[in-house]
């Protein structure tokens, strides 16, 4: 590693290592510049957006050579962000190591392709400035998230992508009917602005958990820098573990954030609704990049818990891995099952995304289950992340092209699109094959890596979870066949015939839209081929390449690793599993959809067991409605009840009583004053006083009368009348009195001598 930056000014640091800084700063500047470019015309603005996106590709790519040289800079600190008295300061910095370099290149590159695609897909939209703003700001925030060297900065990027996601899901905030999602009626439908809010709030729930965990970590470790956290782990981790249960809570709370962001159970319900945004947004944020942030963060923090489990032997540290493995496997299964029955094309892909991220989480989870599986698990998750980003982005963009062409979100309104969109069809089929894990495409190798990681971990739990993952793989192939069939094969639906009748012929997407897809699909194939070649020539295997990089990185971090040579039977078992599952899923898919030997709907609706299962799956396991019932309507109803009872009946009554009784008391006083006090004191007493004084001081009074009584009152009356003229009512008296009192007060201290001071 290159020496850490010492005694350099921030500018010098950026000059020396421009890549990791400019990668996220430039798109953010670009985002802010969008309103400016709008003044030069819409076309220039769109080109500018693409150009800004390209700057981040360049910046990210400038880091790639470090991957090959193995001489990456590591933690580059720029300047102090917050100084803590008696603690190490929080610094602004970037952490450049293989993990961040790989992910940041994936993000920057895919973002750029989608930017290009969007110029056509969003063409003609009147509010594109807002779109580009959020889009570029998203790219910047995402790269900030990935590159930051401490948790706080990561959280800033984390929330930044959340805001952009909110802004882009709710992009069509006017909630025009055709933008609604869900259904078809009678099922509930949701407007985009609702979906955006839902996404932000649900991921926000995860965020508060992770923040809670960060505070615990900060309190014990005194730093939030990743490198320092790992270096000092042997110091602070046992301290947390010394409190029974605390380390487990910290681990689980930490996972809350990634679970929310990556849409894992139980915080997965926002992602299907997030499809309300423009499809290019779904491709970028809700498939390729943002939802992977959780995976990244779990991977980033995993060395700490690995050390805790396998070096310090703290049993609670392993909770981190066990929980995320179980969550991953369960989500993988659940989401795949929902994808089986969904009728919206984008939602199928969304469930599929959730399910695939489940695999990545599973791989990360099993990596901590046994000492030797760590590198394998980490590699599998990063590999699957990359490969999934490529093929899922392609799938979404393809789906976008289809939706763009025939204006419907429902698969039952599609069908036969192969005829109209042959290029999109071919690209979609290849990407889908990769998703389903058909060799030798990238998806096969990366999913295989996940299975291998489970096998390497070789604990009862990891093998059970592998079985869950395997079943999900079968379902993956099945729903892949289903949506390809429903969209592209078979007969045209009524909707398309209707369109044709009106003279709208669906046609192939323009070049500027299919080329980015083709590039992504090309990469899927290239990675897949390298996977195949790499099996014979290990130096070319992408998986081994990543493994080697991560191994190096962990080694530099001082993590003791125990890697076993991969036994051939293990590989064979993983392949066997994949093949078996492809066979099961494929046969069922072939029966139901390709050969049409069995009519799927007749089969399901006629079966007393399958029908309820179908309903159960279609209603998303009833989780969504349950959440709404409890946390949305329940909470609002509860607040209304409390408002109507405690607030209005108790507190309001108290204050009404207090103010009422004060006013009543005031009235009593008033009566007392006018009826008793005034006659007695003001009239009676004054009379007595005046009469007495007149008798006593008759002569003196004359003198006073002349000098003071006539002079001063005349002045006062004059002043008083003047004030009275200014404004009638109580207010002017108040002002004048207060001003007088305060001027006197201030003059009082002003006139007396000053001492001390200054």
């Amino acid at each position, binding site marked *: 590693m290159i020496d850490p930056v010492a005694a350099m000014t921030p500018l010098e640091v950026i000059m020396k290592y421009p890549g990791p800084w400019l990668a996220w700063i430039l798109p953010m500047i670009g985002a802010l510049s969008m309103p400016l470019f709008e003044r030069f015309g819409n076309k220039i603005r769109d080109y500018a957006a693409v150009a800004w996106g390209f700057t981040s590709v360049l910046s990210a790519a400038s880091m790639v050579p470090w991957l090959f040289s193995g001489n990456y800079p590591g933690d580059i600190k720029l300047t102090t962000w917050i100084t803590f008295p008696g603690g190490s300061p929080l610094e602004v910095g970037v952490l450049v190591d293989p993990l961040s370099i790989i992910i940041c290149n994936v993000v920057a590159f895919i973002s750029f392709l989608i930017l290009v695609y969007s110029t056509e897909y969003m063409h003609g939209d009147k509010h594109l400035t807002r779109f580009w703003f959020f889009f570029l700001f998203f790219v910047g925030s995402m790269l900030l998230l990935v590159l930051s060297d401490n948790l706080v900065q990561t959280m800033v990027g984390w929330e930044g992508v959340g805001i952009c996601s909110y802004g882009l899901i709710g992009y069509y905030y006017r*909630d025009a009917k055709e933008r609604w999602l869900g259904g078809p009626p009678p099922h509930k439908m949701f407007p985009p*602005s609702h979906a955006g809010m839902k996404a932000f709030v649900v991921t926000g729930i995860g965020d508060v958990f992770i923040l809670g965990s960060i505070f615990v970590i900060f*309190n*014990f470790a005194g730093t939030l820098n990743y490198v320092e956290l790992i270096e000092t782990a042997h110091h602070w981790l046992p301290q947390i573990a010394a409190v029974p249960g605390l380390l487990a809570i910290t681990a689980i709370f930490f996972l809350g954030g990634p679970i929310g962001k990556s849409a894992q159970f139980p915080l997965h319900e926002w992602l299907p609704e997030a499809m309300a945004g423009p499809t290019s947004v779904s491709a970028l944020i809700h498939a390729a990049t943002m939802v992977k942030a959780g995976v990244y963060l779990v991977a980033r923090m995993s060395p700490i818990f690995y050390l805790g489990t396998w070096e310090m032997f703290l049993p609670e540290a392993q909770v981190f891995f066990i929980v995320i493995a179980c969550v991953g496997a369960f989500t993988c299964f659940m989401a795949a099952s929902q994808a089986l029955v969904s009728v919206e094309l984008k939602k199928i892909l969304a469930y599929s995304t959730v399910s695939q991220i489940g695999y990545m989480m599973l791989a990360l989870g099993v990596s901590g289950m046994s000492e030797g599986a760590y590198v394998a698990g980490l590699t599998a998750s990063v590999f699957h992340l990359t490969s999934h980003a490529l093929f899922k982005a392609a799938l979404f963009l393809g789906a976008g092209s289809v939706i763009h062409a025939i204006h419907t979100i429902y698969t039952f309104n599609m069908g036969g699109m192969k005829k109209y969109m042959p290029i999109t069809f071919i690209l979609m089929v290849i990407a889908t094959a990769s998703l389903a894990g058909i060799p030798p495409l990238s998806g096969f190798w990366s999913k295989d890596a996940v299975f291998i990681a489970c096998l390497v971990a070789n604990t009862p739990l990891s093998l059970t979870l592998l079985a869950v993952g395997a079943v999900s793989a079968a379902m993956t192939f099945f729903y892949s066949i289903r949506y390809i069939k429903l969209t592209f094969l078979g007969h045209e639906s009524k909707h398309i015939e209707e369109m044709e009748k009106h003279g709208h012929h669906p046609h192939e997407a323009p070049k500027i839209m299919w080329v980015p897809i083709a590039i992504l699909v090309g990469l899927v194939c290239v990675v897949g081929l390298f996977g195949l070649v790499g099996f014979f020539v290990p130096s070319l295997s992408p998986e081994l390449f990543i493994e080697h990089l991560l191994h190096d990185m962990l080694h530099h971090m001082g993590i003791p690793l125990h890697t076993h040579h991969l036994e051939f039977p293990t590989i064979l078992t993983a392949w066997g599993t994949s093949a078996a599952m492809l066979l099961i899923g494929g046969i069922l898919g072939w029966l139901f959809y390709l050969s049409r030997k069995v009519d799927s709907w007749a089969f399901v609706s006629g079966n007393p067991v399958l029908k309820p299962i179908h309903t159960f799956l279609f209603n998303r396991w009833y989780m969504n409605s349950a959440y709404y019932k409890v946390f949305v309507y329940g909470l609002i109803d509860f607040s209304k009840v409390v408002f109507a009872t405690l607030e209005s009946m108790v507190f309001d009554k108290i204050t009404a009583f207090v103010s009422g009784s004060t006013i009543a008391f005031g009235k009593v006083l008033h009566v007392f004053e006018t009826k008793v006090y005034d006659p007695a004191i003001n009239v009676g007493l004054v009379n007595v006083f005046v009469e007495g004084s007149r008798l006593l001081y008759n002569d003196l009074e004359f003198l006073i009368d002349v000098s003071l009584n006539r002079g001063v009152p005349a002045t006062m009356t004059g002043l008083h009348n003047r004030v009275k003229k200014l404004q009638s009512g109580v207010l002017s008296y108040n002002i004048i009195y207060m*001003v007088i009192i305060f001027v006197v007060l201030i003059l009082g*201290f002003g006139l007396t001598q000053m*001492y001390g001071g200054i």
Partner: protein
Amino acid sequence: MAIPYSLALVLLVPLVSAPVVYYLGKQMGKKVGWVATLPLIVTLLLIFSLAADLNGGGSYSESYSWAPDAGLTFGLLADGLSFWMLITINVLCLGICVYSTTYMEHRFEEEEHHTGVPTPNSAYASYYALYLLYAVGMLGTVLTTNLIQFYLFYELMLVPSWALINNYGYGDRERIGMMYFMWTHVGAVILLAGILSSYWITGSFEIAALSGVVGSPIAGWIAFAILIGFFTKMAVFGIHIWLPYAHGEAPTPISALLSPAMIGIGAYAATRLVIIPMFPVYQTFSLVFSLWALLTMTYGGLMALAQDDIKRFLAYSSVSQMGYIFLGLASAAEYGVSGAIFHYITHGFGKCILFGVAGILMAQVGTRSIKEMGGLADRMPWTTVLCLLGFFSIAGVPPTMGFMSKFFIFSGAFSSALSGSPTQLILALVAIIMTVLTVGYSLWTVRRIFFGPLPEKLKEVKEAPWTMTVPLLVFALFSVIIGIYPKLVTDYLLPFISEALHATTAALSH
């Protein structure tokens, strides 16, 4: 390099300007609002001139002979704790003064329409004169060094604000003004009881001498009495009921000052008068107060969900945010207390933006009912952006400074919880989970007001004039800049609080 007498001038300039503004207002009418901004600009510059002296825990003070026989001096002090409080108050007063020029015109037109009587110039004159006095009250409370002086300014804050509600408010304004006056006054009287009892023990009215109370058998009671006085101001759960009324019915620019700037001074005063000088005594309250704070933040948030009137909604949200500040104070840890003051600044700017937006909606749309609004983003893009930024600030979403202030509050809450009991840890965890409520009610409200289809009758709504949006944009800019560069605040706050708390602990252990 401070200008001589700068702190005295901070109070004197607006104070002397108040009658001037009043008399000018008689001649000029509504234009006098612009004159009223001048003294506030001067004070802001004076405060900024102290920046270098106060950085890193420094302090600057002035003291004048006041009543030497009673041992009273008129002292003014600016330090790391008060510096950003002063800036916040001053910037808000200045911005809202500009905002008022348009808003009050609208308000008076509305009133004219209602009563048929043309607005006299004096109405503008007394509004801005009172406004300046109100500003003096707030600035004076923050600057003061002895308890009698503190009490005077504390009441000076109350009287003009009462008069403003009473004369320019909405609805049942006289009754509500009275209610506001009573509640705060009762709080102030309890505070006075605490102050007088402390004099009985220490023989001094200096705030610095308050630490002499520690060790006395009634120290806990004194601290509690003073705190209750401030908690009434902060409207914590149980004594919060006046707030939604007062902030709901006050003229909107005044709500924008009342809600964040003034009630939060309670938190400042609690820090200055109790937490710092009587730290060991205060620590014993930590657990109970944490619970109370949690209750306040949750309850305020829940009540906000149930509101339809946008100003009452914001008022309840203030109750909830005071809960956060209270949580920071309750942690009795340096980060928590710093976070509370930091959150005062956040909430100051954030809530001021939101009340400003509410005022814009009332002026441009003509309704306060959230139900009647919708889809306004098309008609008022700037207001939408402002509203989002305001909500992001109070919900603690980066890059606004809310993220940083909540970070400190919870960091304090966790650090005291982890060194305390498991109960406290559970409280802290529940509290942080409750922050989702803020995000929830914020975005839900944004959606109901600005998104969705635009109702037919709102098709003609226009964006607010720049005099209303620009001040709010400046507040938003403050929020974002500090959010990105929190050192601007923390370099003043953290060293001061940390030193002060350690000094008290060390001094008392000897």
